[in-house]
């Protein structure tokens, strides 16, 4: 399966956070905490996801932020297509990992790999 963007480890973590409930919009700082990623890693990923149209972003309703007495937030949310592709990508990744683990487990110690 080929995706429009490379699913690196950090991308995978961002997608898991967003997929936890695709209906809930989340803001950058929130995603960065939940995915345990620094903002310097997170924002470029969000920009890539947005360009690939997996994710959409929009400003929070100003009335809400004014009532809460803070600047308005930029909210990110998976698009419908993005949610589908993301969950497929995560499944594929999990499968590939499982396969690799079982093939490693089947291998005889000492038969592969170089002697220390």
């Amino acid at each position, binding site marked *: 399966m080929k995706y429009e963007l490379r699913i690196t480890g950090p991308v995978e973590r961002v997608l898991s956070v967003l997929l936890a409930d695709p209906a809930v919009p989340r803001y950058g*700082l929130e995603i960065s905490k939940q995915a345990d990623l620094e903002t310097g890693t997170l924002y470029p990923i969000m920009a890539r996801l947005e360009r690939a149209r997996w994710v959409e972003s929009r400003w929070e309703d100003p009335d809400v932020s004014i009532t809460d007495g*803070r*600047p308005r*937030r*930029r909210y990110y949310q998976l698009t419908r297509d993005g949610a589908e592709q993301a969950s497929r990508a995560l499944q594929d990744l999990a499968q590939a990992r499982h396969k690799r683990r079982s093939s490693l487990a089947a291998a005889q110690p000492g038969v592969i790999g170089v002697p220390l």
Partner: protein
Amino acid sequence: MTPQQAEAPEADLIAELHEVLWITRPDADVDLIRHAYDVAAYWHHGQTRQSGDAYITHPVAVATILARLNADDPTLCTAMLHDTIDDTPCELAALSREFGTEIAAMVGEFTRLHRIRRRGRKAAQAMAAAVSRDTRVLAVSLADRLHNMRTLQFLPQATQLRKAREVLDFFVPAAQQLVAQQLRMDSVPSELETLASAALARNRYARAASGRLVATAATLLPAATRNRWREEWLGELQTLPTRKDRGSFAAHTALGMVRLALTLRRRPADRG
């Protein structure tokens, strides 16, 4: 104008308006516009802007913005008189006697729009209603806001932020709508947007080291998206509780900037 007044800054502004009109509207009724100036100057006499300038400099600047956009005579007079009803004892009936019903109605419509906003009702609705009525009044409203945004630094910070947000949320869309209606205001929406975003970027933490770092790093980003990211980050920054948190946020965000800039500069066609 009397010779004593000729030294005042408004004399320069009036001269500038005349020059602009000479180029964009050689057929303009200069006497009528001049009369609108005199009436506005009479009513605003003694009032000052936050900048310390005489208040009359503002309506003249608004009229000049509109003159550059080839606005017609009633629009230019409305621009001159736009604050007389709300900010001075002047009454619409007096304007109607001096300038006729068309101009008085436009000033009245401007005032109505302005009051709706002041009452805090959904301003987008007010703007939408205005678009359906006289687009010239909306043009005055936009030019008024544009001049206010150009002179925003003289207002208190909280007011700056509120006004800037208002501009981004409905003045820019309204201006774009006017452009779509071919009203020759093509430069207005982008200038409004730039000024408003800059004001938001100057928020509480923008001057602190962390805010400056984020704002400086953001200059690496393509111009079209820069303001959005800057506002997003300065907003997040403001919600962080300690200085250490803010410093760390700024440092990490700045570190990611080159990668973000590369992502944003890549053409969308390169996807996949």
